[in-house]
């Protein structure tokens, strides 16, 4: 498979996952605010700013907006193409990557991605958003799930497909870690939070909803919502498809399907790092993590995700590639040497 194609499939899947996650975060926050009383401007900022921080685009945000008002944050995260990670930007980039590998994906997948693209690119999208943000986010989420489903059930599960898997799971793990970090200001830096009040319950429930984890969580823990249980569920649950442990497990499988190396071995840095992280998550407890500090732990995790991504890029995509100028020089030297060789052989033949 062409390295460039693998790269595009990886990013196509990543951007789709990104758009869906942002849609969920913003959607849930809008709903959460309906439930919280006595909201003044300062408290509103306390709900919107962490979301900007979670997406890692704080700097870009304040270049465009003076205050983290609800309107500014939603605009920034949903529509603004100046934000490379907004929903609209993510969909455009997913589609651009798909366009580069149009021959590798199915008509069904391409049509749905293209339909989503035209939906967010036309004024209809804004109208839907204005009339009912909930409907708007529902459409984005449904399209993303539709695309993920089509990727699963119409694409041949070959090498390129596994690259798309890697992209999807690395993005999902990253976003789950960022959503879990949204309320870090309300818990102690180290150790478990002691008392849990009504607002905390609402806020940690919102975290679950932002990960589409509400029903899955309830099926295990019932109605009791506490930071400890939520964090444990989203970090260490073995079976929930958005928990970080699950995502890294799948990522690890995908990397090994690409190389063909057994799970207990590795042949490149990406596999080494992913395998190590799987083991770490398998053999950690949530109490240890809270003891060390949840926020710091999540920060470290995000760095590890980045390292795995970079190692994969170095292994499969980036092959020592000279610049065009260098390549031209190499060619000219090669050709000169050859013509010299031809020349001398001609002389010997005489």
């Amino acid at each position, binding site marked *: 498979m*062409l*390295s460039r194609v693998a790269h595009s499939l990886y990013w196509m899947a990543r951007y789709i996952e990104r758009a869906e996650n942002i849609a969920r975060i913003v959607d849930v926050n809008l709903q959460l605010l309906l439930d919280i009383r006595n909201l003044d401007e300062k408290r509103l900022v306390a709900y919107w700013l962490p979301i900007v921080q979670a997406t890692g685009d704080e700097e870009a945000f304040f270049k465009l907006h003076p205050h983290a008002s609800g309107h500014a944050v939603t605009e920034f995260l949903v529509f603004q193409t100046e934000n490379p990670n907004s929903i609209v930007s993510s969909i455009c980039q997913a589609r651009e990557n798909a366009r580069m590998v149009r021959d590798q994906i199915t008509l069904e997948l391409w*049509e749905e991605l293209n339909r989503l693209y*035209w939906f967010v690119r036309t004024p209809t999208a804004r109208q839907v958003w204005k009339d009912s943000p909930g409907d708007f986010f529902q459409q984005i989420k449904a399209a993303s799930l539709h695309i993920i489903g089509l990727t699963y059930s119409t694409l041949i599960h070959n090498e390129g497909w596994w690259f798309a898997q890697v992209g999807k799971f690395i993005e999902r793990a990253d976003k789950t870690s960022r959503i879990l970090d949204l309320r870090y200001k309300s818990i102690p830096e180290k150790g478990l939070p002691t008392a849990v009040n009504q607002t905390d319950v609402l806020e940690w429930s919102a975290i679950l909803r932002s990960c589409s984890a509400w029903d899955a969580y309830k099926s295990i823990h019932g109605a009791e919502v506490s930071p400890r249980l939520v964090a444990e569920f989203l970090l260490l649950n073995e079976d929930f498809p958005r928990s970080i442990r699950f995502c890294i497990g799948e990522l690890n499988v995908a990397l090994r399907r690409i190389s063909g190396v057994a799970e207990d071995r590795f042949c490149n840095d990406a596999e080494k790092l992913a395998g190590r992280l799987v083991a770490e998550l398998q053999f950690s407890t949530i109490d240890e993590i809270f003891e060390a500090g949840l926020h710091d732990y999540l920060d470290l995790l995000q760095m590890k995700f980045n390292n795995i991504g970079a190692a994969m890029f170095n292994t499969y*995509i980036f*092959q020592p590639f000279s610049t065009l100028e260098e390549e031209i020089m190499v060619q*000219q030297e*090669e050709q000169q040497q050859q013509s010299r060789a031809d020349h001398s052989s001609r002389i010997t033949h005489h």
Partner: protein
Amino acid sequence: MLKDYKVNAGFDEMLDTKAGVRPHYDRFHRLFNALTPAEFEAKRQAVDTAFLRQGVTFNVYGDAAGAEKVFPFDLLPRIIPAKEWENLERGLAQRITALNLFLHDIYHDQKILKDGIIPEFYVLSARHFRREFVNFEVPKGIYIHVCGTDLIRDKDGNYLVLEDNGRCPSGVSYVLENRRAMKRAFPGMFENIGVRPVENYPQELLKSLKYIAPAGVADPTVVVLTPGAYNSAYFEHTYLARQMGIEIVEGRDLFVRDSRVFMRTTKGPQPVHVIYRRIDDDFIDPTVFRRDSMLGVPGLVHAYRAGNVSLANSIGTGLADDKVMYYFVPRMIKYYLDQEPILPNVPTYLANEEKDLKYILEHLPELVVKAANESGGYGMLMGPKASKEEIEKFRELIIADPRNYIAQPMIFLSQHPTFCGDEFDGRHVDLRPFILSGERTSIIPGGLTRVALRKGSLVVNSSQGGGSKDTWVLYGDE
């Protein structure tokens, strides 16, 4: 539906001079008339939406938004009866045979020049003549593997050749997609009317490409080389690659070592044997042609010369696209095949010939003037529709560089009923059949019918507001 349709002027594809329906349109006409306007509108909208959703689009150069446009598609098919098509097919095969012989001759013995059939000056001064490739043996002796020849019909319905596209002709993906759309919109008609299929083009193309693989390669790796996602024909490049089941690569995916071409894959370098390139000669290798080209592959030409990779089309075929060479094609047919051309040229004047130049300059307001090496409707003067200033500008251009200009009388192209917003009206059409040269010559039945959607316009290019139609070649004559 078509009751109010009338012949405007000139030759109408569907109606004869007495406004009767031509026999080969008869069955279509009856079935189409049975549709209600609402049914037609529903079908039209379904097709439009499908094209947009599938991304059957072309990119517009210089459009900042990176805009992709749907190539407008008209639901009324252009129909060609079997006998007429047979004649076209023979004419096109004759022409491509002569052109391939001509290119082989020019890049070898140049007999046609030595015998004085074509003045040497015209060939040696042609912009796309690649003297570096004189005496180079192209695989299997084929120069133009894929040709798109533009045909038009004059006011009496005679087919004429307007130009040959022997470099990287595009449009075949629309032929295939238009047909898919039509089959979905009018499934019953195909059963009733008997239309020859076009779907096997990708297989035929792949066969032609494999045919030229370097000697000794049993299972050649064939790729499509595209300039990238921003090229106007990018949709077509991916479409063909997908249909053929081969990789589509950009220049940066390939590199050359020891005169062999490789592609960069996740499993390391993989050898490449045949390249269907959709990049012009000028951009294909920065060590040989344009040094500033970022699209090509350094060393590719060297690998090609070493015989380790084959290219389709071959380097140097642009010579046959030169509009001055076009003038000489009937002579080539006579010289190489000793036959009369089955499909005549449009009468053409060469600005470089004294007598012709005089005529051109005296008759500019009546003539169409074309630059020898432009395409896509650029670098053209439509005398009868041009302003005084435009005519004077071309007068200067022609005098300054007569080698680079030809002129032709304005041909009043045939018209075809076309849906124009709220009624059916005649619009001018041309036809681009696609001809493949491999082990044998094969021609896709029909080709791309382009239609000038603006009333009265004679320019059918997609970049100039043209649209397209499905082209039906019938099994029979009615």
